[in-house]
């Protein structure tokens, strides 16, 4: 189709691409360039930073304790990934491989659960975690994020498990594997790509989440990165170079992650939406 495009059409497409790139990349560029700009606070509309400095980064890491916040976020994220991957895989095998009563109901329920606005559950979950004395703990936060990422993970993995031919499983049984041997040696490696996709999703949910971390974590040694940035902004609200350095530290891991897995992520999402 591209070959038939007229000159006017080409100019239109070039303009559209320029607008798209400007709109998508400008905030990222402005964040990173301000983080390295020694005169960030008085930058105004200078397109290029006035120089290069790492002062803002050392400020947020030393005075802002961003190292600890990032480590907390990473811990919560990894915990969420491991738990949700394990539980979702079990559940996905159950709904994809077994025919049992209420199977459809369970599937519909998992789909409906995704529609619940989680923000509406802040109050009851706060009270619940308070009763369980898990309010100020990374474990409590991990458990809550697990519940958020589980429905999507089950739904996505179901497709991957269903795509594994039954003959492969039966061959494993014939070779003398038990059910568990088949599961760990045959099924697990074959659904690994699906696990990668759901893991990325679960990690991003945990890494980016704000409300629950903000309500649950009262002790500043337990802040996640997003909450830490909010507290830091409260203290140094006009120190834009430092706020942007903190934002860069939080954004970059996710950014790199997304760009690396973009093809698989897009494919998995599309598959989930169309199926």
């Amino acid at each position, binding site marked *: 189709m591209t070959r038939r495009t007229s000159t006017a059409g080409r100019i239109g497409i070039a303009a559209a691409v320029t607008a798209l790139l400007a709109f998508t990349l400008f905030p990222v560029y*402005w964040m990173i360039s301000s983080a390295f700009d020694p005169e960030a606070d008085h930058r105004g509309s200078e397109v290029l930073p006035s120089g290069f400095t790492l002062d803002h980064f050392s400020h947020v890491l030393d005075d802002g304790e961003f190292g600890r916040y990032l480590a907390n976020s990473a811990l919560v994220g990894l915990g969420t990934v491991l738990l949700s991957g394990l*539980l979702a895989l079990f559940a996905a095998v159950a709904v994809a491989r077994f025919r049992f009563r209420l199977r459809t109901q369970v599937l519909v329920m998992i789909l409906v659960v995704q529609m619940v606005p989680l923000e*509406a559950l802040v109050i009851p979950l706060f009270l*619940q975690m308070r009763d369980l004395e898990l309010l100020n703990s990374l474990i409590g936060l991990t458990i809550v994020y697990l519940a958020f990422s589980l429905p999507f993970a089950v739904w996505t993995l179901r497709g991957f498990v269903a795509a594994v031919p039954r003959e492969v499983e039966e061959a494993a049984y014939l070779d003398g594997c038990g059910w568990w041997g088949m599961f760990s040696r045959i099924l697990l490696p074959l659904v690994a790509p699906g696990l990668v996709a759901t893991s990325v999703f679960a990690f991003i949910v945990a890494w980016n989440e704000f409300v629950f971390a903000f309500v649950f974590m009262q002790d500043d040694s337990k802040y996640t990165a997003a909450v830490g940035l909010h507290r830091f902004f409260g203290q140094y609200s006009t120190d834009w170079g430092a706020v*942007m350095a903190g934002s860069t530290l939080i954004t970059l891991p996710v950014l790199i992650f997304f760009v690396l897995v973009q093809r698989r992520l897009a494919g998995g999402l599309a598959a989930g939406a169309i199926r």
Partner: protein
Amino acid sequence: MAADPRKAGPAAPRARAARRAAWARASRPWLLLAPALAVLAVLLFWPLVRVLLLSFQDYGLRQINTGESNYTGLDNYREILGDSFLWTTVLPNTVGFAATCVTLTVVVGTLVALLLQRLGRAWRAICSTAIMMAWAMPAVTGTYVWIWVFDPLNGVVSGGLDGLGLIEPRETNWFTDRWSFYAIATLNVVHHGFPFVAITVYAALLTIPRELPEAATVDGANAWQRFWHLTVPTIRPVFMVVTILSIIWDFKVFAQIYLMPGGAGANPDVLNLGVWSYIESFSRNQYGLGSAIAVLLTLLLLAITVVYVRALSKESDEGDAP
């Protein structure tokens, strides 16, 4: 078989073993499902019931500390629904903002998907990487970047407009006015939200067989007709999914409003349902009232989703009929 006593002996344990095997087979899916269902029950269903119960109570600091319940019937709902603040400020903010964001997100996302389809391989890779970068930016850091961009004194926008002589930076603060506040929030939410629509719609466009648009072109259909009569009906399910998801996400926006200057309650004009619920509960310790607002938000979302799904399925039924 039961009439033959010689066979009854060994058959009984065999039947028992078979029953046990059948029971193991039947219980295995439930054993596999149990951990996931338990997590969902404790962390989604029970809280959902609890927020409903709390919404019928006057639940404050006292009740938090003692754990006792204090039912007051529909008082919370009466208070919220009788408050003109809901009707003149919070509801228009929530609904207007969400409607604008959903429309813009879906339109921009679809346009970008159509653009991606027309690009060559290299430019498509560049553009989709850029889209991924917009998507990857966390809501919290993205919000701070937009605040910085629109910072009244040193931000790039006011600096640029000042340079052109259009505004006086010291007299302009976009975060205090309700309309400009929400315009910035809209920019933030659309920037973060359109990549999901673009990538999903683009993937759906790839599933349309090439012959269809070509045949339509031969028949003399122009680009707009091809899009409206061919592309849209073919990928309607995908449009439905991205629209419903966008509605759900944009109605319950919290961080992008709460973190903006004045968004945390200092400026009541800009509250939406999510932030209002949070402030009533955690800043004013009226957890019952906050829960009632949260229930209203949930019901609103539910109603919109149901109406939307109904309308679309009815429309497609009529469309299918010859």
